[in-house]
């Protein structure tokens, strides 16, 4: 066999174009296809350019969203938690009580905010049972009458005298 392709160190040789013909003959010997069989969605290569350009050349300035968690938020959250724990669990001689709330503020809150009181709470508040509560006819009450009654008859004391 004529030496055509000599390995520099070992002295072994191969026939001329052996490697090229080896590769070329792979398909013929093995019936191995030269196509992968992979395909893409229709018009993928027409649309992918715009997707890439939006991430590169057409990229708009970065918008900082308030809802997205940020790295700096975590240490601040931890610090806030520690401060809260210290405030809650350390002995504190300056505890606030219900008495410290200004009456005017409380009254304004009760007047302005909707207060959802269940029938059970009403029976406990006025020391009546459920049957007595049911017997009260609320149908005759209209908003005007109710407002006038509450304005003239109810004071903040009516609420604070009871232990809710």
């Amino acid at each position, binding site marked *: 066999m004529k030496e055509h392709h000599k390995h520099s160190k070992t002295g072994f040789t191969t026939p001329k174009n052996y490697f090229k013909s080896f590769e070329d003959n792979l398909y013929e010997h093995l019936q191995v296809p030269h196509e992968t*069989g992979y395909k893409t969605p229709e018009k993928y290569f027409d649309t992918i350019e715009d997707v890439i350009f939006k991430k590169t050349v057409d990229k708009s300035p970065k918008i900082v969203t308030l809802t997205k968690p940020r790295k700096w938020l975590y240490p601040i959250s931890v610090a806030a938690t520690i401060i809260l724990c210290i405030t809650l669990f350390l002995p504190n001689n300056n505890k606030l009580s219900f008495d410290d709330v200004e009456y005017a503020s409380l009254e304004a809150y009760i007047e302005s905010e909707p207060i959802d009181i269940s029938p059970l709470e009403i029976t406990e508040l006025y020391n009546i049972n459920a049957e007595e509560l049911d017997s009260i006819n609320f149908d005759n009450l209209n908003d005007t009458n109710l407002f006038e009654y509450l304005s003239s008859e109810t004071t903040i004391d009516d609420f604070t005298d009871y232990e809710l």
Partner: protein
Amino acid sequence: MTEQVLIKKLKNPKTLNSAFKELVSIYKERLYWHIRKIVINHDDADDVLQNTFVKVFKNIDRFKEESKLFSWMYRIATNEAITFINQRAKKHQTTTEEIQQKIISNLATDDYFDGDNAQLQLQKAIATLPQKQQLVFNMKYFDSLKYDEISEILDTSVGALKTSYHIAVKKIELYIKTHH
């Protein structure tokens, strides 16, 4: 537009955008198919292709023109695809080989695979190869790249590439014969 002119425009901030669009237009398909053969799944290939072009865009100033622009982009695409596969394997606490085998085993039902049985067998055979041999085989057999070009992309000597390819072909031959 020659490669030299394109590179010059890519490195000029005033002409970067138009030159980049030209670059994407020229190389999108070649890079896609290169990536697709590594990650196999279309959606994954789509993600990796986008990441590749974003990296090219951001790092074009670092391209030192020591290799061809095409080789540099191919290298980025290869690294991105391999990193993608490795990250997925890490996420599933398994090996890249097992991940590939799993994807290949679902290939027959993949919406974006319409190969016949011979093509399916070939892909299964390729998936049994070590990663480097897969890359060399795909670049040489399907992309018809020259050894010099593959050498530049994979930073491996031509001699080592020829050996890898030869071994890969022998393994594929054996696989197909035993699974025929």
